[in-house]
């Protein structure tokens, strides 16, 4: 290969590198285990280019519109939920230069005061981390097949 062809090939590779997004590191867990924030934090794998670490915790409140509750039973169509999350992660990869997404969602019974959702996004800057996190949670509530059933606090018998 002549030197000029080598140069052209290098330029092509550089162009491809700029056009092809770096795959986002992904970690998705949907199970009934309590969310262990400390363990998740210890598992963080951030590069030196990640200037923003966004962590969001969704916590079960002790009341709903109809009154006080003890907790929430979460049910998932697991196979489809994993697939839908995977498609959302694909879309995030297309939209923002995110380095890593880790999401854990509990199913089964979650007591009021305990977390049901843990999300971490690593990105070069805070703007894309906040935008991707907000978008992901909004879309999750629209397309990922997970449902809630509150356990209502029983009124004491007279």
């Amino acid at each position: 290969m002549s030197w000029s062809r080598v140069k052209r090939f290098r330029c092509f590779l550089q162009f491809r590198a700029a056009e092809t997004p770096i795959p986002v590191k992904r970690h998705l867990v949907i199970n009934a285990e309590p969310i262990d924030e400390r363990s998740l934090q210890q598992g963080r794998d951030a590069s030196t280019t990640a200037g923003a670490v966004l962590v969001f915790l969704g916590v079960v409140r002790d009341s709903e519109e109809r009154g006080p509750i003890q907790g929430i039973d979460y049910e998932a169509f697991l196979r489809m939920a994993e697939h839908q999350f995977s498609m959302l992660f694909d879309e995030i990869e297309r939209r923002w230069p995110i380095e890593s997404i880790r999401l854990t969602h509990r199913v089964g019974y979650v007591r009021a005061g305990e977390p049901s959702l843990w999300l971490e996004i690593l990105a070069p800057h805070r703007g894309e981390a906040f935008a991707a996190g907000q978008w992901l949670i909004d879309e999750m509530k629209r397309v990922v097949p997970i449902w809630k059933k509150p356990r209502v606090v029983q009124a004491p018998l007279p």
Partner: protein
Amino acid sequence: MDVRIAFYSYFKDLTGCAETTESLAPGATIADLITRLQERFPRLIPMERSTLVAVGVEYQPRDYVLVPGEEVSLFPPVQGG
């Protein structure tokens, strides 16, 4: 043709079951399936507009033509988080 149907969330309460099967004519759509299910489970009728339908793990519209052996899931709006 036979299709398998799974219900999730409170649709299980409305139908009294988590799964069932239906025999439909070839070329039947999801809309045809919903009509048949409403005959069997009238408590699904008020939920018609908000019912979400998936075939396998993908959402599908009402005019989707079903294929024998497919697994269809019916459920109310999702609400994770």
